[in-house]
């Protein structure tokens, strides 16, 4: 039944990009959590591309917040950027107030530019 989740670690113009594809819920969030834990907390920019995520619940938000917290420990220059272009995903970030926490962009190119 599980629609599954794919998490790809890539680099775009030397910036680490975590491309997430599928549904992020209680069943699949551990996979995302594990991949985010592989990112070095070196104070650089990290982009989480959620443009191919079709469902995101509070478990997924919890994983994103944990990742943001860990990477923020790398220093003041660290930047945790999200790419979100689906209204349903943007809405869950909005209703939880997380659009004020994360830098949210509509495209990967915009996220790279910051």
């Amino acid at each position, binding site marked *: *039944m*599980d*629609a599954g989740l794919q998490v790809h670690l890539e680099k775009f113009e030397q910036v680490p990009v975590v491309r997430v594809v599928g*549904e992020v*819920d*209680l*069943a699949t969030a551990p996979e995302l959590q594990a991949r985010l834990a592989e990112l070095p907390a070196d104070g650089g920019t990290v982009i989480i591309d959620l443009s191919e995520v079709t*469902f995101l*619940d*509070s*478990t997924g*938000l*919890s994983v994103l*917040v*944990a990742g943001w917290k860990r990477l923020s420990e790398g220093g003041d220059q660290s930047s945790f950027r999200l790419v979100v272009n689906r*209204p*349903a995903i943007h*809405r*869950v970030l909005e*209703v*939880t*107030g*997380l659009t004020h*926490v994360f830098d949210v962009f509509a495209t990967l190119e915009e996220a790279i530019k910051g």
Partner: protein
Amino acid sequence: MTLPNHSDEPTQWGSITNSPERSMALTIPARPELWGLARMAVASIASRLGFDFEEIEDLRLAVDELSMACASGIGPDSVLHLNCHWSEAGLFVECMVIPVVAVANGEDGQFPAGLSQKELSESILAVLVDAYGISLGEGSRRGWLRKDA
């Protein structure tokens, strides 16, 4: 026939019938990898009722959060019962879980606004639906939500 004893739900829903034409029951193992079935069933009903795309997405998320509130941290052999009733007034969804073996809940991390995940989940429900309730007892766990047409 009226809905069974939803004394804590808004009274205007007392007129809804649970006739076979306007109700649906789904029983699944209370395992997270199967909650997609609950989301799909509710989305399908909402679509037939004429809810728009955004409302259907809201319901998918709300049902997921309701399932999580009722079924997270319970034993693997527990069963989740999902009952849906609808009318021209909208959609009513009830989620019931009778834990076979209760286990400790996982760590409930804090969010930037000081919210725990449980509080975050409830704040999502509060925004997405017109009314909801969650009752967690030792013997059973029950949650419900209402989305007006």
